[in-house]
């Protein structure tokens, strides 16, 4: 399976490529008052607002101190939702391993369920 993969802190994660509409460098994010804490705010992409989800916070990971950050815009039916990933992102082919993991170049990555993530991000706490 084709995957995007990256690290948050030391932990390796992957997202199925078919769930991704686009990866772009993170730009300005406009805060949304009263939004759930895992939502960083809105960003503009192709003339439309997209909601940016704080992935490290949602996964309870320390954000990396680096300067690189990406926004991973999700594909339909999650149009308009995007994940903020503060690290380098690569793409590659992985082989499915047990319990929602995939092996990429012999390394184990946790494959994220984007729908569950967005649902979790909508929760107030």
């Amino acid at each position, binding site marked *: 399976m084709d995957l995007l993969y990256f690290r948050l802190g030391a932990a390796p994660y992957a997202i199925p490529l078919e769930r991704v509409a686009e990866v772009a460098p993170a730009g300005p994010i406009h*805060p*949304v008052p*009263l939004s759930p804490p*895992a939502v960083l705010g809105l960003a503009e992409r192709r003339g439309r607002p*997209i909601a940016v989800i704080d992935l490290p916070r949602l996964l309870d990971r320390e954000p990396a101190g680096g300067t690189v950050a990406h926004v991973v815009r999700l594909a339909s039916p999650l149009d308009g939702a995007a994940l903020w990933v503060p690290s380098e992102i690569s793409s590659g082919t992985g082989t499915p391993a047990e319990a929602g993991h995939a092996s990429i170049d012999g390394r184990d990555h946790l494959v994220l369920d984007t729908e569950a993530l967005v649902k979790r991000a909508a929760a107030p706490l």
Partner: protein
Amino acid sequence: MDLTPYLDLFVAEARDHLGAACELAGSLGEGEARDAALAQLFRHVHSIKGMAASMGFAAMSALAHDAESLMDRLRQTRAVPEPGTERVLRDALACLERMVDRAERKDAVDDAERAALQDGLRRLLGGHPARAGAAPLDPGGSAGPARAAAGPESSGCFKIAVIVRRDRSFPAVRAAIVIGKLARLGKLVRIDPPMAALRTGRFDGRLAVTIAAHLPARALAARVSAVEEIETFTMVPVEAPRSRDASAPVTASLRVRSDRLDALLEDVLELMSSLGRIDAAGREIETTRRLARRAYDALVEMRLVPFEVASQRLSREADALSRRLGKGAAVEVEGQEVKLDRSLLERIIDPLLHMVRNAVDHGIESAETRKAARKPAVGRVRIRVARLASRLSITVEDDGRGLDPRRLKQTAIERGLLTPAEAVRLADPAALSLITLPGFTTAEETTEVSGRGVGMDVVKTTVEALGGRLRIESRPGRGTRLELSLPATVALVQTYVVRAAGMSFAVPLASLGRMASMDDHSTTWRDGRRYWNVGAEEIPVWALRDVLRLHGPAEGRGGMVLIGEAASGATVGIEVEEIVGRREVVVRPLPPPVSGLAGYSGAAVLDDGGIVLVLDPANLPLD
């Protein structure tokens, strides 16, 4: 041949025809008006028959055929129809409508319903097998029912399809000769292929000519058959074209799939926003912007349809169901003329149908029960559509038995959706929302009444996916009111841009009553709440920075109050620190995971790529 790509078009066109047909069938009138209505009705059903046949929907086509035959019989004989005839016709139209629904979902045909109806139709046709009388001139059978429109003695407009003898050389020349001979029999309204194509010499032997004949049908047929270059032909009476002059320019209307229009609209919007970012002065860029704006306005307008398109279907559904259940229910629709986005309407039609069925089936009581409760024997279902600011409100209200929170809780416990302890804690108004839980409605009920597995849970999720909300109100014994509050999706909205705690927000003009500046002298504090006194009025005021829990430093001179109406109907004031000015923005629904967030009707991207949140003052979470 795979016809799937044409399914959407078929469904859209069939619905248009059915909508018009049902309206006609609802009030046939008398005398000449009745004849005219029947003729129109006939044409709509005839179109459906043809379209269904070309899509391979044989059952649909057969039912349309029998309905058509019955109409033709009524028209032809001018006899007083047997009682129940019009009802059978209406039922047949309703059945066709359901068949189109099924075709759209690619479901199998429900043949039991059709077969029963078709039996009824044939009985009314007096045992005359529907397909028996195909005209000799019409080997394909397609003109059978239309035959009577131009009886043997009448002259009129006919479409003559000809196969030119192929045993001769120069078939294109032969075709031209045929056309010349036919032209002597009347005025040629249309020639297909056109003469220009024939002159190129390409001709496959088939020619279709529409002719406004000087002769009665029978004589015309005789003259046509005497043309020796013609091998075979069929002749079908057709409606005379509105324009007498075939060469006169005609404003054609074009059917466009709504998703294509959506895509085009998106492109124009993107064009507008990227034009906004071009850092250039001068007339060219201004002209370009104006053109983009004009294209946008035209596209938005094209996507709007009056609610009437849906309300006819809703009324008919309610009528049919109340008849089937032996209940009296009258449907009133308010706001037929309100225009809304077609794509939005397409997505909410099923939820609305479900709400209306619910109102008739579960809401309205039997006549006896109503009488005992001192209510009018006939129940009332009111559908109301209104445009409020950048939102659209659609309510379905009945004066039936209402929802009983205790019974709802009991059902939820029985279905394992609620523990008895939770039920005790659940407040009555909140208990009404139990009907939106998946699994609350039993499978038995969904098949029998709604028929398509749309439950209130689907209504709720559909509305929320559109960035809207479902509100449920009910008074036991008095009735139930369901309101869909929806964003009006893509649309340019006039707003005021306001600021509070260093942030900008847009507030739709239409959501505001008025605006005023407020000073400390005119406010009083009571029970921890600030009130603004204007004349005899006392308006509670909330600061936007408090409502949205903003912590930035205050700016501007402060004290500007936006006065609007809260969802509860009360007048409220929202204090902001500065009103920056007016701005026209494209309001986009908030994307997931913030799509359901209260207090906003969406967000807009400004020309410079910046984002502004659009407030929905009526739904701000004031304590």
